[in-house]
């Protein structure tokens, strides 16, 4: 396998944007090309677009060539759009990585984008209900908030996790997001009291326990490692990956509070990068809901099973703790434009390793970082490991 480097990135403002699907593609793409030297759109050999539901949110399909056209890209090796619900963006990065590592292409661009605000927000909400099996789970009123609320209920029941510990995840991530101008929830901080007293959505989850509906785009340029210095003096590298999928319908899952696929994906990611969880300095995990981040601490091996609540309460996931989690603000603070989220996470590591983040969230000396996404009924977990060198 060949080594793969990230040499340039672009990240739009996340939030309720006065912009359409193809505007977000153009914004992100331009920022990425502006971020690298010696690279033009015509140099991009392969192009991957992470987009979860353009069919429903923008009534567009076959979107990869549309995005390529908007950016003046004419791929001659590989072009495709990837869909893996909330992990659609990581699927795109993963395929670009795999194609370069395998020697099928040398220079690839990945764009992740989602336009989720619609004139009728009930329609947007409805779109998310077919992410779970529409015919056997969605039909029963299950979409992400009620599903993850039941995960929270089971985690509280089985392990004694508290309501306040869940709220602490939002407080921590919001502290980072409050100063991140790219974040949907920029400029606000929340207390535990504010989180637990916010509007009930699917109890025990309240509005501030949930990531938002968000518009946003992001882009990355990946190259075979020996080419990286042509485009930047400070590339970062993909060190390993892991992915696992177990079940889909609730009956097929290992459990609501036990995400075995996350543990298996993490083990494979650590093995492939030849590291252990103790080597991870910084983690971008999929905090679609506060409970998610707590379960992820456990399954990613940062703490023992059942002790995720204690981990956040003790500050182990904050600056100065065992592993700093979600310095850009997480999905909770940044918002969650489905196809763009994984790229936003990777871009945070790119900026962290290059010392390009403001001091308030800089993890000094970080060498190894992971990005994690779950998708659907937490049936699939996707993990990539990035390194400074």
């Amino acid at each position, binding site marked *: 396998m060949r080594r793969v480097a990230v040499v340039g990135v672009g990240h739009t403002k996340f939030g309720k944007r006065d912009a359409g699907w193809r505007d977000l593609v153009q914004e992100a793409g331009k920022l990425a090309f502006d971020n690298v030297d010696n690279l033009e759109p015509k140099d991009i050999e392969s192009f991957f677009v992470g987009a979860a539901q353009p069919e429903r949110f923008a009534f567009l399909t076959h979107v990869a060539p549309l995005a390529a056209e908007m950016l003046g890209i004419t791929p001659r090796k590989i072009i495709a759009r990837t869909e893996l619900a909330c992990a659609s963006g990581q699927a795109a990065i993963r395929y670009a990585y795999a194609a370069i590592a395998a020697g099928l292409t040398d220079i690839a661009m990945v764009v992740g984008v989602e336009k989720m605000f619609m004139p009728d927000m009930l329609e947007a909400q409805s779109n998310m209900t077919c992410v779970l099996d529409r015919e*056997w789970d969605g039909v029963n009123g299950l979409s992400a*908030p009620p599903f993850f*609320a039941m995960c929270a*209920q089971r985690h509280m029941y089985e392990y004694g996790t508290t309501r306040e510990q869940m709220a602490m995840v939002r407080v921590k991530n919001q502290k980072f997001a409050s100063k991140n101008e790219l974040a949907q929830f920029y400029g606000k901080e929340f207390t535990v009291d504010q989180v637990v007293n916010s509007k009930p959505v*699917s109890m025990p989850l309240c509005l501030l326990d949930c990531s938002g509906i968000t518009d946003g785009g992001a882009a990355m340029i990946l190259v075979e490692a020996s080419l990286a210095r042509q485009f930047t003096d400070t590339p970062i590298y993909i060190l390993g990956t892991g992915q696992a999928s177990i079940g889909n319908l609730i009956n097929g899952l290992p459990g609501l509070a036990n995400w075995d696929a996350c543990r298996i994906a993490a083990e494979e990611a650590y093995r492939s990068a030849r590291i252990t969880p103790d080597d991870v300095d910084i983690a971008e995990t999929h905090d679609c809901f506060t409970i998610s981040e707590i379960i992820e601490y456990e399954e990613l091996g940062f703490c023992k099973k059942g002790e995720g609540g204690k981990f956040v309460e003790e500050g182990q996931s904050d600056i100065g703790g065992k592993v700093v989690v979600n310095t850009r603000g997480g999905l909770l603070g940044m918002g969650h434009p489905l196809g763009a989220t994984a790229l936003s996470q990777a871009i945070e590591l790119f900026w962290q390793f290059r010392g390009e983040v403001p001091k308030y969230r800089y993890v000094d000396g970080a060498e190894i970082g992971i990005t994690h996404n779950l998708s659907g009924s937490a049936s699939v977990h996707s993990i990539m490991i990035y390194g400074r060198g």
Partner: protein
Amino acid sequence: MEYRTVKIPDKINLPTMLDFYPLQTEKWTRVSRFFENLKEGKLTTTQCKACGKLHWQPRIVCPECMSDDLEWVELPKEGKLHAFVESIVVPLGMEQEMPMLVGVVDVSGLLISTKIDDAKLEDLEIGMDMELKVVRVEDGKQERYWYRFRPKK
């Protein structure tokens, strides 16, 4: 400016595929027996005759052993509540049901998601006994049936 007006309809019928309930007849699915049995008040599923695996959802091929020699078996009409939630997140066409009680019921070891009827949030607790309730889904075009659960009386 003078414009020619191009009219688009301000209302259209709800497209069939957007109402969430599965298509149920023989013409559209090979597990139509599930829905026929449900109409008779029976919750059924498939079990593999080769390896004995009990499935949920009902299937035409056993995912354990790839046998297609399956039989229909009736499940108990009762189960235990595994998890539940009151949700205000409702899809299009279910607005009138908000807030909605949703749960997972353990029936013979199968974890079956369901709407919960005839209860308030404060009536529910993990482990309580639940019973099957069959509902008819009306849309003016086709007759369909679906299952729910409610606290056991």
